[in-house]
């Protein structure tokens, strides 16, 4: 019987299935960050050990300082707790100053730790990112983190399967971020609930690995359990030579080549989009589903039939300081942030730098590369100089202004053009107003101080 990519991986990892349908799954990779302190405290309370410390990888990213200088004691304490817990349990750790430090969802693929066919978990919802390599990756809560630490397994109910096929070719200046936001808008922020999504079709295959990582990263924003792209030659080429890639690499590729969904495999739901219809997208509200082409206008609640949706549109626009019908192009922006597990990889930085090269930003902004390695590469390629010459701040890698835990915050009432993943109320700081967009669109906003259609800006002088 033809099987999907998801089913093949699931079946490989099923230790047992209870009569009620719950499966006990083997976990190949467990990434932990500073937020794991609650889970480690649960282990301590039970006097329990970590079952397979070699399959657990610790990295400090959520509280990592983006700027040099003194660190607040309560922030330093978070790194100290992770260092202590990793040490006690024999888990490898990359702390803030390590040469292989970075955002967990950037360094997993970058080091070749995440591989096709694996099940990857982390106490972070954006673990869906890792599906870009043809793995099942999903976020878990602290109690589940403790469960994986103690047993290397997790109880799960098999989700339903959805295939999102994107036909055609994305237009110039339009990337994975625009595609992902477009899909979220179509499905709704809870429309993927209960599903594992496989992305397919020529426009998906044409995405670089960085683009696939962005697409899978944002899968959680439509509420799906995980997002995946079948492994192919591009995946293998990306992994070849990475520090943790398998030693018998060609043999591994041979087995990975059997993973893609068989023809005739069935999905519970199928959606098809045409890439040519997709424009650069920005969010106007307080949920990633509140997104529109940059050529659009803030929705008018009076024209929304469903009263609950109309109420949300009214409240979201009020929080964002926008009025119904207002054009998105031209909305004044106070600052820019380029970074996060969504858009901080080398290709993202290149896309932003291509717009900014030889020009000056008219508003302040911070660029935070996704890992120490991305930082080194961007400096070698001259991208860092382009950002600093444009007047933007070039920081260290970490979650930074995406989640505001390390002290990087947008001030109340300020508006930020951001390459991150959530425009929730207060996400970038109490009262902060976030517009999500691609790195190229954020760079365009930096140049004009307004939401801008990047297609109308010629690339800068490199």
């Amino acid at each position, binding site marked *: 019987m033809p099987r999907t990519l998801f089913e093949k991986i699931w079946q490989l990892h099923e*230790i*047992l299935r209870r009569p*009620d*349908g*719950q499966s*006990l799954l083997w976990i190949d990779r467990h990434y932990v960050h500073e*937020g794991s*302190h*609650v889970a480690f405290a649960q282990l301590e309370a*039970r006097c329990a050990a970590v079952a397979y410390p*070699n*399959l657990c990888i610790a990295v400090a990213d959520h509280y990592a300082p983006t700027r040099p200088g003194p660190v607040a004691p*309560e922030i330093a*304490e*978070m790194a100290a707790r992770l260092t202590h817990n990793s040490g006690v349990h024999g888990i490898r750790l990359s702390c803030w100053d390590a040469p292989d430090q970075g955002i967990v969802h950037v360094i997993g693929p970058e080091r070749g*730790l995440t*591989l096709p*066919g*694996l099940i990857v978990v982390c*106490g972070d*919802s954006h673990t869906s990112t890792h599906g870009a390599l043809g793995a099942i990756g999903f*976020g*878990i*809560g*602290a*109690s*589940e983190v*403790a*469960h994986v630490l*103690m*047993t290397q*397994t997790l*109880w799960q*109910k098999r989700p339903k399967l959805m295939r999102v096929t994107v036909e055609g070719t994305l237009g110039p200046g339009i990337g994975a971020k625009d595609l992902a936001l477009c899909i979220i808008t179509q499905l709704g*922020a*809870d429309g993927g*609930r*209960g599903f594992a999504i496989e992305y397919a079709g020529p426009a998906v295959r044409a995405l670089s690995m960085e683009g696939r990582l962005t697409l899978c990263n944002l899968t959680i924003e439509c*509420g*799906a359990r995980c997002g995946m792209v079948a492994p192919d030659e591009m995946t293998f080429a990306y992994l070849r030579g990475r520090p*943790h890639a*398998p030693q*018998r690499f060609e*043999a*591994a590729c041979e*087995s990975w080549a059997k993973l893609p969904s068989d023809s005739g495999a069935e999905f519970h739901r199928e959606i098809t989009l045409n890439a040519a219809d997709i424009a650069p997208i920005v969010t106007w509200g*307080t*949920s990633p589903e509140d997104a529109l082409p940059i050529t659009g206008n803030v929705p008018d609640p009076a024209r929304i039939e469903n009263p*609950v*949706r109309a*109420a*949300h549109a009214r*409240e979201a626009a009020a929080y964002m300081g926008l009025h119904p019908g207002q054009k998105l192009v031209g909305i004044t922006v106070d600052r820019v942030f380029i970074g996060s597990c969504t858009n901080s990889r080398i290709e993202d930085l290149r896309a932003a730098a291509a717009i900014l090269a030889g020009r000056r930003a008219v508003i302040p902004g911070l660029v935070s590369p996704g890992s120490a390695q991305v930082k080194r590469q961007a400096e070698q390629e001259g991208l860092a100089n382009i950002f600093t010459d444009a007047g933007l701040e070039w920081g260290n890698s970490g979650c930074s202004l995406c*989640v*505001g*835990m390390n002290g990087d915050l947008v001030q109340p009432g300020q508006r930020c053009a951001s390459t991150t993943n*959530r425009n*929730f109320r207060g*996400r970038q700081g*109490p009262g902060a107003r976030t517009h999500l967009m691609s790195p190229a669109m954020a760079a365009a906003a930096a140049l004009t101080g307004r939401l801008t259609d990047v297609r109308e800006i010629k690339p800068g002088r490199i």
Partner: protein
Amino acid sequence: MEKFTRLTATACPLPLAGIDTDQLAPARFLKRKRSEGYGPVLLCDLRGAPGFPLDDPRYAGARILAARRNFGGGSSREAAVYALVDYGIRCVVAPSFGDIFASNAVGNGLLPAVVSEADAEAILHMLEAFTPSLTIDLEACRISAQGASWPFAIDPVWREKLLQGWDDIDLTLSRQGEIDAFALRYRTEHAFAWI
């Protein structure tokens, strides 16, 4: 884990869609140890605004919340559940829940009860206009107040877990022999999956 069978308690209406986990427990409080308690953190950036229902004396001591769609979407932070549980909430009624939130909730004895959008509106109206109290019957999967009654859905495995007060880790450790046998075989057959 505390068992959940039937609960009659004060229920607070929150007529908002998309109450995400960032709002339930803002990021700046995630440094707290579990033992410090998360109750005061709950929705703290929304509370204090004029007319916010959770501050309304009618709903003081609420053990149930009713809200609109996509409750608990976003971040996997279990602190969102700790904030609710430590405040005293044992059940949230909404048309849809964030996947990871719902799983975290059940693990902490908090019932995520899924109702239709129309029933959610009816329940919100009941709490605002008639009575600040609901009865939740997990055996029957029904919510009732003042003679009215609405069905709710929950995954059967989660229902059983809440009714029995199961702890996943104890359950898993009872299958240790099967896990060890699997790990041995898997390691041989999928050597590349090991570090």
